[in-house]
C-alpha cells in the first residue's frame, strides 16, 4: 500500500524572541511527514518542544513571542509558513484542527456550547444556523455524549473535564479535518476517562480515515494508539521509527532511557530507572549532542559535534554518534 503524505515538515526552526535581536531556539532541524490515515506519535519529556512544534504547524504562535525562522510546513501542497493569514484561517478548523491539554480552559466560559460549535461549523461551511445546530448535535452523539440537546445548552463550567474534551473533539472534527493535532489530550484527565477519550479518538480516526498527530509524554499511550513515533529531546528529533521497532529496538540512549522508565506489568521491579539529570535550558544548550550531559555513552566527539539524524533502517532514524557506521 503506497503511503500518501498529508503533511510535510521540513527543517522547522522556531525561536522565542525576548527582544528584536535576542532569542532562544525552542525547536530546530525538525523534519517529518504525516501520512494519510495514520496516527503519528510525538513523545518527549515536558519542555522538549512538542507544543511549540504543534503550534508552529497550526500557525498559532502569533500571540506569543515565538516565530518560525526557518523551514516549510506543507499541507496538501500549501506551505503554511508562507501562506497569507486569510488562507491559514480557512485551513484552521477546516482541513486541520487541534485539541489541547486543558479542555476546561479551552472552551469560552461565557458562551454556550451550541454557540461555540455553530461558530466553528459555520466558519467553514454555508450551513444555516439550524443546520449547523443539527450537525453539532450529530457530532456530540458521535463522540459519545448521551444527551446532546442538553449539553448544547450548557456553559463550559457545567461540564466535566472528560465531557469538555469530548466537546472539543466534536468541535475539532465537525468540519471533516484531514489532520487532527492533539496536544496531550488526556494528560489533564482521570485515568479511566483517558482510556475512553483515546478509544474515541481511535474510533473516529478509523471512521473518517483522517490523520492524527498525537502528542504525549506517555509511552503507554503511544504503544496503544500510534503506528509511528517521533521522539524529541531538547527541541530536536532524536529518533523516529514504527512503533514496534521503537519498543523492540530503541536505538537512541534517550529513547532507551524513556522506555526503561515505563513500569511493566508484573515485572516486579519496584524502583524504576529514571534518566539522571534534566532537560537543558534553552538559553544554554550544550554544544554537540544535546543529550550528552545525561548520556552514559557520551564521548568527546559527542560533546563537541552535533550528530546527524542517521538512517539506520527502513523508516528508522536516530540522532546519535553510536549509529554512525
Amino acid at each position: 500500500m503506497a503511503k500518501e503524505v498529508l503533511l510535510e515538515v521540513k527543517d522547522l526552526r522556531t525561536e522565542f524572541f525576548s527582544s528584536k535581536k535576542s532569542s532562544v531556539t525552542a525547536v530546530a532541524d525538525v523534519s517529518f511527514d504525516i501520512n494519510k490515515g495514520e496516527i503519528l506519535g510525538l513523545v518527549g519529556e515536558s519542555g522538549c518542544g512538542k507544543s511549540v512544534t504543534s503550534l508552529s504547524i497550526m500557525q498559532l504562535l502569533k500571540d506569543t513571542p515565538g516565530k518560525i525562522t526557518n523551514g516549510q510546513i506543507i499541507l496538501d501542497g500549501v506551505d503554511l509558513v508562507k501562506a497569507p493569514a486569510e488562507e491559514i484561517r480557512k485551513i484552521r478548523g477546516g482541513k486541520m484542527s487541534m485539541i489541547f491539554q486543558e479542555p476546561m480552559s479551552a472552551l469560552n466560559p461565557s458562551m454556550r456550547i451550541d454557540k461555540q460549535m455553530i461558530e466553528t461549523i459555520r466558519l467553514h461551511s454555508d450551513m444555516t444556523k439550524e443546520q449547523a445546530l443539527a450537525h453539532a448535535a450529530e457530532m456530540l452523539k458521535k463522540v459519545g455524549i448521551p444527551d446532546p440537546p442538553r449539553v448544547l445548552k450548557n456553559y463550559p463550567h457545567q461540564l466535566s473535564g472528560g465531557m469538555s474534551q469530548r466537546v472539543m473533539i466534536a468541535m475539532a472534527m465537525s468540519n471533516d479535518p484531514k489532520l487532527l493535532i492533539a496536544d496531550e489530550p488526556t494528560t489533564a484527565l482521570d485515568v479511566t476517562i483517558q482510556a475512553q477519550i483515546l478509544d474515541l479518538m481511535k474510533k473516529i480516526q478509523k471512521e473518517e480515515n483522517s490523520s492524527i498527530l498525537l502528542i504525549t509524554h506517555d509511552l503507554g499511550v503511544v504503544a496503544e494508539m500510534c503506528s509511528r513515533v517521533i521522539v524529541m529531546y531538547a527541541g530536536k528529533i532524536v529518533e523516529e521509527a514504527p512503533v514496534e521497532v521503537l519498543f523492540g529496538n530503541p536505538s537512541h540512549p534517550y529513547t532507551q532511557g524513556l522506555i526503561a522508565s515505563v513500569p511493566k506489568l508484573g515485572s516486579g521491579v519496584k524502583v524504576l530507572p529514571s534518566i539522571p539529570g534534566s532537560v537543558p535550558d534553552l538559553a544554554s544548550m550544550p554544544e554537540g549532542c544535546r543529550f550528552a550531559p545525561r548520556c552514559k555513552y557520551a564521548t568527546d566527539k559527542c560533546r563537541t559535534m552535533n550528530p546527524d539524524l542517521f538512517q539506520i533502517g527502513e523508516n528508522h532514524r536516530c540522532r546519535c554518534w553510536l549509529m554512525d557506521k
Partner: protein
Amino acid sequence: MGRYVARRLLETIPLMVIISIVVFMFIHLIPGDPAKTLAGVEAPLEEVEAIREELGLNDPLIVQYVNWVKDALKGDLGRSFKSDLPVTELIWSRFQFTIQLVFAGLIWAPFVGIFIGVMCAIKRGTFVDLGGMLFAICGLSAPGFWLGLMGIQFFSVKMGLLPSGGLGTLKHLILPSMVMGTGIMATLARYSRSSMLETLREDYVRTARAKGQREQIVMFRHAFMNSLIQVVTILGLQIGGLLSGSVLTETIFSIPGMGRLLTDSIAYRDYPTIQGILLMFALQYVLINLIVDVLYGVINPKIRYD
C-alpha cells in the same frame, strides 16, 4: 436569569433594614437634643416639650422606628428644620441636579476608558499603548478640583466658550462632565488593559483562532467579552465614587445639588434633611450594587448558574 435577579433583590432586604436602623438611630446618637435645637436656645421648656411631643420623641424607640419606617415607605421623611419643606421634596429638587452630573460623567467615561484600555492591550508595547497609558496616568493623577478650575480658566475665562458654573443647557454640563468622568475613564482604561491582556493569554482565545475565526472577532467576542467580567466590578466601585465626587463638582461649578444641600443642612443642624440625604445615598449604593451584580450575571454565566 429571572431567578438570579429575584434572589439578588431578596438579598438586599436585610441590608436595607440595617441601613434604615442606622439612619434612624443617627438622630438619637448625635449629642444635643433635636427638639431644643429646633426650638432655639432661648425657647421656654414648655415649647421644647411641645415640639418633642409633636415629633414623637417621647415614644419608646421601637415605636418611633416603626412609625418612621412606615412614613418613609410612604415617601414622608419629615420636614426640614430649616425651610419647613417636606424633606422628600427638598431632596428631589436637588437630586435632579446631582443625577445630571452623574449621567454627564457616565455617558462617556466608561466607554472611552474601556476603549483606550482594550486598544492598549491589543497594541501592547507600541506607541499606541504607551500614549494611552500615559493619558490614563495623567487622568488618574489630576485632582478633580484642579481639572475643574483649569477648565474654567481656559474654556470660560480665556476663550469664553463655556459657562463657568450653574446648570441649564448642555453647554453647562460639558466642564462638570469632564471633572466627573476623568477619574473613571482613567481607572477603567488601566483595568481594562490589564484584564484584556489577561484574557488574551487564555486557552479559549487560542481555541478561537484554532477554529479559523477572524482576528477581529477573536478579539471582540472571545477576548473582550470575557475581559469585561473584571471591568464591571471596578465600574461598580467607581460609580459609588461618582456620587461622592459630585459634592466637589457641585462646589466648583456652583450647582445646587445634593452635595450642597448636605453641607448646608449640616451647618444648620437640619437633622431630618441630613437623615433623608443619608438614606438616599445608602439607597443609591444598594441600587448600584444591584445593577452591577445583575450586569455581572449577564456576562458571567458561572455566577448566574450557581
